[in-house]
């Protein structure tokens, strides 16, 4: 083979790898962002403790694996009802009291919850960095010069499935319609006989169940430690703003865009630039398309 053709092949492999990395990283971001966008979209509450629920999901998988050798994919089925319950509990104890308060109060409350949860984890489980290595975390798949990890593929597939399921739920079920109605006009919904408190409770619980599941799914890929949630949560806000509040499919596309900016930016300009790029994008979207890239103009003020 002549050198020029080899070079061409090498370049194709590089871009194929970057493409695969983008899609798989985007899947992880979507998994984390989808619960956040739901809570954000329906309740209009910015949940700053979202990352800590992710961390709790990671610890759930870690302890289940190291104490009882339970595979994270099995733990997934336990974690969904577990985190749904945790979501209900958090809503009843914390969120219900501030749901009609000003945004500042809500921000203080969720930031407080976030710091409290981090420190509980620190006291109970220490600051050690823990890792779990189920068999699928070391399975490498190689296709056409690209390589990726089986756990990442599974996380991606479940992210897509979860996004579509939530999208369908919101669009075609009665409960979904009730939730959308509450988001669009809280007062009118109340007048129509909708129990908005129940809607919020359900929304918050579904959102937390999603992020708990996300924590379980990313646990084979990343170290588990008390502030692990901070690693992802800023990104999740960028994704949610990009995709439009409460827009499931938007969150999926937003995740892929953020991942593409991160992967290509890191490859071309260096990793140090990645946050510059996606926060410039974040600000640009807020300034020029405040409803998100895929949202309708004016949608951002709905229900506020």
């Amino acid at each position, binding site marked *: 083979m002549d050198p020029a053709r080899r070079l061409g092949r090498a370049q194709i492999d590089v871009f194929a790898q*970057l493409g695969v990395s983008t899609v798989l990283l985007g899947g992880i971001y979507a998994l984390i962002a989808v619960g956040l966008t739901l809570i954000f979209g329906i309740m209009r509450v910015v949940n700053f403790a979202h990352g800590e629920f992710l961390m709790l999901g990671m610890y759930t998988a870690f302890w289940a694996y190291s104490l009882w050798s339970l595979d994270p994919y099995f733990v997934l089925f336990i974690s969904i009802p577990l985190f749904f319950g945790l979501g209900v509990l958090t809503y009843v104890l914390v969120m219900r009291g501030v749901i009609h308060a000003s945004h500042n109060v809500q921000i203080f409350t969720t930031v407080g919850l976030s710091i409290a949860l981090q420190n509980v984890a620190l006291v109970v489980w220490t600051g050690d*960095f*823990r890792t779990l290595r189920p068999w699928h975390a070391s399975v490498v798949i190689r296709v056409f010069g690209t390589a990726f990890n089986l756990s990442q593929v599974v996380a991606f597939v479940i992210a897509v499935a979860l996004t579509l399921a939530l999208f369908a739920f919101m669009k075609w079920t009665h409960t979904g319609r009730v939730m959308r109605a509450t988001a669009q006009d809280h007062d009118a919904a109340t007048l129509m006989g909708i129990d908005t408190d129940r809607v919020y409770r359900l929304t918050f619980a579904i959102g937390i169940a999603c992020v708990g599941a996300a924590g379980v799914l990313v646990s084979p890929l990343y170290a588990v430690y*008390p502030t692990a949630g*901070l690693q992802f949560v800023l990104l999740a806000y960028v994704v949610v703003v990009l995709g439009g509040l409460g827009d499931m499919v938007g969150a999926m596309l937003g995740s892929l865009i953020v991942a593409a900016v991160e*992967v290509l930016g890191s*490859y071309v300009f*260096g*990793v140090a630039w990645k946050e510059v790029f996606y926060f410039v994008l974040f600000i640009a979207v807020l300034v020029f398309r405040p409803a998100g890239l895929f949202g309708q103009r004016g949608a951002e003020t709905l229900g506020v």
Partner: protein
Amino acid sequence: MHRSAVVVTTLAVVLGATVAHGQTLSGEYKIGVLEPLTGPLAGEGKRHLEGYEIVRDMINERGGVAGRKLVFAVADAPDPTAAASEANRLITREGVKIITGTFSSRLCGAASEAAARHTVIYWETSCVDPRFNKRGLTTVFRTEIDATGFGWYNVEFIAKHLAPRFNMKANALKIAFLSEDSSYGQGVTESARVRAKQEFGMQEVAAEYYSFTSINDFTPIITRLKQLNPDVVHHIGYTNDAPLFWRQAREQNFLFKALVHAGATGYGSPDFGRALGNDANGVFALLEPGPGFRLESLKPEGQKLEREFREAVQKRTGSYPLGGHQLAGSGLWLLKVVLDRAKSDDLAKFRDAVMSLDLPVGSMINGWGVKFDEHGQNSNARVQHYMLQWQNGQLVTVWPEEFTTNRAKWIPLGAWDARK
């Protein structure tokens, strides 16, 4: 061992030793010990305190400091603000004239600044922030080398040990620098870059910094590094990112001849071995001496000290000394040597005693020597550091070879699945 049994044994040893030495200690001498004992840095802070306590007991069994029994006033410094206020409290309430500490580079600056305002001596044993003794303070001393010293040793190892074993000249080596972007990572990396280029003419193919708090994917950088084809990857990582890089390098089949790290985080942390098991094989980390360290390689007085120190740590913790024990223990023993010589904590006399010390490598715990410069920094060449390598789940000492019974393996690193 049962706790009461430990207490009894310790007491017996203490009494036995006192009787054996036939010394009586006249009065007490109190110093301040400042470490993070709560909060995120607490794990390492507590290990340091344990190291201090072990060596304090060794000191008191051997005549104390200048004939007096050494005692501690311990304070907790979880963050820089607490470090400064607790340093103040130790000085004003406890009346100490010397403070020692502090594991973290985040803390030593603030604490020593507070001590300096009272002209109290700050005896640092662990923090590696290069700025620590570049502030014109005459009250600060550091027994450990700083982060730039780590870079110095890493390049020494790459040029003088790895290059010949690759059958390459140092100036033919292609080296890629990758680092987390805290003052620690930058301190090590920048000093290594300068020395690699200026002294050995190595070819730098990349220098990349990233934030360990937000790095989620190394594949773009690995894809780029693969094209640059470095012989050596010099990676200063933290504890969440080092396993991620290593795992993804394996997935991407990124082949290089060696990876070199420095310090007790990242590749130097036991968490790295736990995360990767035998997949960790071959990684180098610059640290204090670990398993394989040869006592016979030290000077006679250093051998005795090191043996007794290891036994004391073994007795208290049931394991080989860890980095925290070694840094704190070695630093505190050196403080005793200085106080015995100065016979005073008066700053001028203390400083004279520090500056007059001139001990070769192999004289102290960890095989360290002593020679301070006018900034209060012990010298790179005397504070001997060691290269450790992950070998089948254990981090063992492999370099300099005269100090160890183990030999570095997998040079150059072969295929990923052939490192057994």
